[in-house]
């Protein structure tokens, strides 16, 4: 696996406002990196720097081994970029526009037809190929934007909010396309749709106030999301003292006399899952023995959203070190 993007100590100041603060990361072939963060966190600025639209105040970016500042043409040759507003010449037809993009991306004339055909097919644009871009719906315009970014089959693809303005079916198609492209390309996509990250990315990166506060693979993230909380509902009130005798329970949270949240001790490692099932078994046994009438026992999963909200709201990003 080769390193496609190597960003080191990137910072970007607008006057004295620091939009991106000393972030470093790598992207390799086969990775789809989801870039998450609240509005104004520096996502778009980072994307603009990676695509050569904005020079970093400090730090270096290498695209497929070429320094973006010193060998801009070679670096950009390896790059496909969809900005947050698709850069479309709306007075052209889809075919004319993509043909122009093919030329400025230096696709050899003989291969242009094939490249156009494949990009149109991948983005589902065949039916509208001869229509003016300005007459297309927002979803189709967005797809033309994506087609433009993948047209020249660049090793690095940068997509700034690629699914904005698409309907659910199109979103599914684009996610599928991203996963497919992710196999032999390196893709960075920014979004604030959290489920999108879970569905199409292999890695997640969360940025807050210009700082990188989390960088994990989806597997690691799933571990974070494993629950250590059980919600128990019974017919008659629970005597918490008796439940408390069970080892492995950290604390209780009473919602009502018959509804309790049980926090189990978690070590944030894989054995936790089996621990949890042991604890669950004992809880169930206790409740049944006591005759409280167990109605429901549900493990509560952390959603990515919980983690995200936790991270971006916490003044001190301690969760990043978990």
């Amino acid at each position, binding site marked *: 696996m080769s390193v496609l993007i190597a960003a080191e100590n990137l910072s970007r100041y607008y006057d004295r406002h620091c939009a991106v603060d000393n972030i470093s990361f790598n992207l390799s072939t086969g990775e789809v990196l989801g870039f998450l963060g609240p509005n*104004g*966190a520096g996502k778009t600025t980072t994307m*603009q720097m990676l695509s*050569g639209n*904005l020079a970093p105040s400090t730090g270096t970016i290498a695209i497929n081994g070429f320094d973006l500042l010193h060998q801009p043409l070679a670096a950009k040759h390896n790059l496909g*970029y969809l900005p947050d507003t698709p850069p479309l010449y709306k*007075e052209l037809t889809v075919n004319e526009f993509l043909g122009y993009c093919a030329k*400025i991306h230096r696709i050899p004339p003989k291969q242009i037809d094939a490249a156009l055909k494949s990009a149109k097919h991948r983005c589902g644009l065949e039916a509208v190929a001869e229509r003016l871009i300005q007459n297309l719906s927002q979803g189709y315009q967005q797809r033309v934007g994506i087609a433009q970014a993948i047209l020249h089959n660049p090793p690095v693809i940068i997509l700034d*909010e690629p699914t904005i303005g698409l309907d659910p079916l199109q979103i599914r198609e684009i996610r599928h396309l991203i996963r497919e492209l992710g196999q032999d390309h390196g893709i960075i996509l920014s979004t604030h749709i959290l489920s999108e990250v879970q569905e199409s990315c292999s890695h997640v990166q969360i940025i807050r106030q210009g700082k990188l506060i989390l960088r994990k693979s989806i597997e690691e993230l799933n571990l974070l999301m494993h629950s250590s909380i059980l919600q128990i509902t019974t017919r008659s009130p629970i005597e918490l003292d008796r439940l408390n005798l069970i080892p492995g329970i950290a604390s209780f949270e009473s919602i009502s006399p018959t509804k309790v949240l049980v926090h189990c001790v978690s070590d944030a490692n894989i054995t936790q899952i089996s621990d949890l099932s042991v604890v669950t078994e004992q809880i169930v046994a206790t409740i049944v023995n006591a005759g409280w009438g167990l109605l429901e026992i549900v493990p509560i999963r952390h959603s990515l959203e919980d983690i995200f909200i936790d991270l971006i709201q916490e003044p001190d990003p301690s969760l990043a070190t978990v």
Partner: protein
Amino acid sequence: MMILTIAQREFKTLFLSPLAWSILAVVQWLMAYLFLSQVEAFNVLQPRLVSMNDAPGIADIIITPLFGNAAIIFMLVTPLLTMRIICEERRNKTLALLLSSPISHLQIILGKYLAVFGLLSVSILLTSLMPLSLLLGGTLDFGKFFANLLAMSLLAATYTAVGLLMSCITLQPTIAALSTFGLLLLLWVLDWSSSISDHPSPVMQYLSILRHFQNLQSGLISSEDVLYFVFGITLCLLLSILRLEQELLQKISPAVVHNSSVE
């Protein structure tokens, strides 16, 4: 190669909007009217010219004033063509396409420059067809004709370069057009004061675009005048490229504004 690709796209886009067509049409109407009035003037003067030694010919009475008027009309028209070249790409956020493609800033600027200059050239050619039509019934001083053509082309090329620079600098097309027109008019009238005073300032005289234009028009093609235009064009194009580079380095936070406006 890449320059031509960009120029071609830009040129085509100009003709996809009614702007290029209307400008060509309006200029052509005005020039036709002015041409006919010059022909009329020639007809009136003709009896007197016959009796003169070394009388001015068709070229002096028709072609030179015709292109002199064209220079003024182009000054009004060029800003309308150049105002949107960079400015509008920036507003429509299509500049990102060019900036993230393997194209240098030089190629972007030259491509766009050639497109607008191409359109003005079409207009100049259409205009020059009018004096050529006189060949049907007379002869033409081709030396003067081509000198005028050269002067007009250099002038249009300079106008375009100034307009391009202004389009790079300003954020709004109207401001770009206004400042282009202002700067061009200033260069045009720069020499007026010195023609009245007893001690004309040589600097003002040199800077005056009108002076160099008229020198060339007279049929006296000196390298000094040609170099004035070439130097002006090069300067404007270089500054445009620098401006693009500088924008890349210290963009004044449109990204931040934009980022917070998303959703």
